[in-house]
């Protein structure tokens, strides 16, 4: 972690909570949790992320976790790619699908509306811009306007999170810790 305050600057109550998380999970606390619990009155984006990822949507939880992993890949955040690939794989019970999507979106075994939406999120994140023609293309692929809005909400949440994961230099947790984290995210979400 690049800033010492994110490792050791939490309030006493939060330090106690981090200790409980460490004992209950059996793993070191991942850096994403340390960030989420640091000065929640300033950053505290957990509720926004939870609504984007677990609120009512025509996209499944697995689809939205895959979108998060895809956005993270566009931002080049290894931590977020690993965390949300694991979560999406667990939800789908299909890690090959997630791996194939991140490796080559054009040939991945996914439905066309999801493919078009991921292309949109990838372009938005990596090129910092999309236009009306891009949107028309996604709509023509059968994606509804509300589905696009929901996907953009995931893009917002993980456009922030993946940037911060890189900027603060999150440690890549062990595969076992990532799997434990993925199970937690499916059980409890992001709050």
């Amino acid at each position, binding site marked *: 972690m690049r800033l010492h305050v994110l490792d050791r600057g939490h309030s006493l109550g939060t330090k106690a909570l981090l200790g409980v998380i460490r004992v209950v999970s059996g793993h070191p606390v991942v850096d994403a949790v340390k960030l989420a619990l640091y*000065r929640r009155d300033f950053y505290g984006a957990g509720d926004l992320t939870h609504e984007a990822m677990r609120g*009512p949507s025509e996209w499944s939880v697995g689809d939205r976790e895959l979108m998060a992993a895809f956005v993270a890949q566009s*931002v080049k955040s290894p931590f977020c790619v690993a965390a949300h690939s694991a979560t999406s794989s667990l939800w789908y019970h299909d890690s090959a699908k997630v791996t194939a999507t991140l490796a080559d979106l054009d040939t991945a075994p996914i439905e066309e509306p999801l493919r078009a939406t991921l292309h949109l999120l990838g372009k938005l994140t990596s090129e910092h811009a999309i236009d009306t023609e891009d949107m028309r293309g996604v*709509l023509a692929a059968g994606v509804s306007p509300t589905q696009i809005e929901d996907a953009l909400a995931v893009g917002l949440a993980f*456009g922030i999170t993946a940037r911060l994961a890189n*900027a603060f230099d999150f440690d890549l947790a062990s595969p076992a810790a990532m799997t434990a984290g993925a199970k937690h995210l499916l059980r409890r979400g992001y709050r």
Partner: protein
Amino acid sequence: MTDISKLHRELVTRVLDSDATAPPQLRRAAFDGAGPDGPIAVLIDKVAHHADSVTDDDVTAVRAAGLSEDQIFEIMVCAAVGAADRQYTAALAALAAATGSLE
């Protein structure tokens, strides 16, 4: 559909207007992807546009310019939130234009 509109507004308000340690003008500049010349501007630009290229030296240089760890935390958060916010807002505008043109 999900509804992040209120949570989104609240997040932006918190990082820009809450009682934090970095001056509001600096947080606003970071949110807008700008900043005073020198290491602070370099760090803000990297977080906003290629966060994977941020280095320990970038942060050390900002510390040397006089910012505390919490101030650095705040401007990095503002830079990330601002960059993602601009993309989100532009995309929603493109969607509105596209759906309007289809009607």
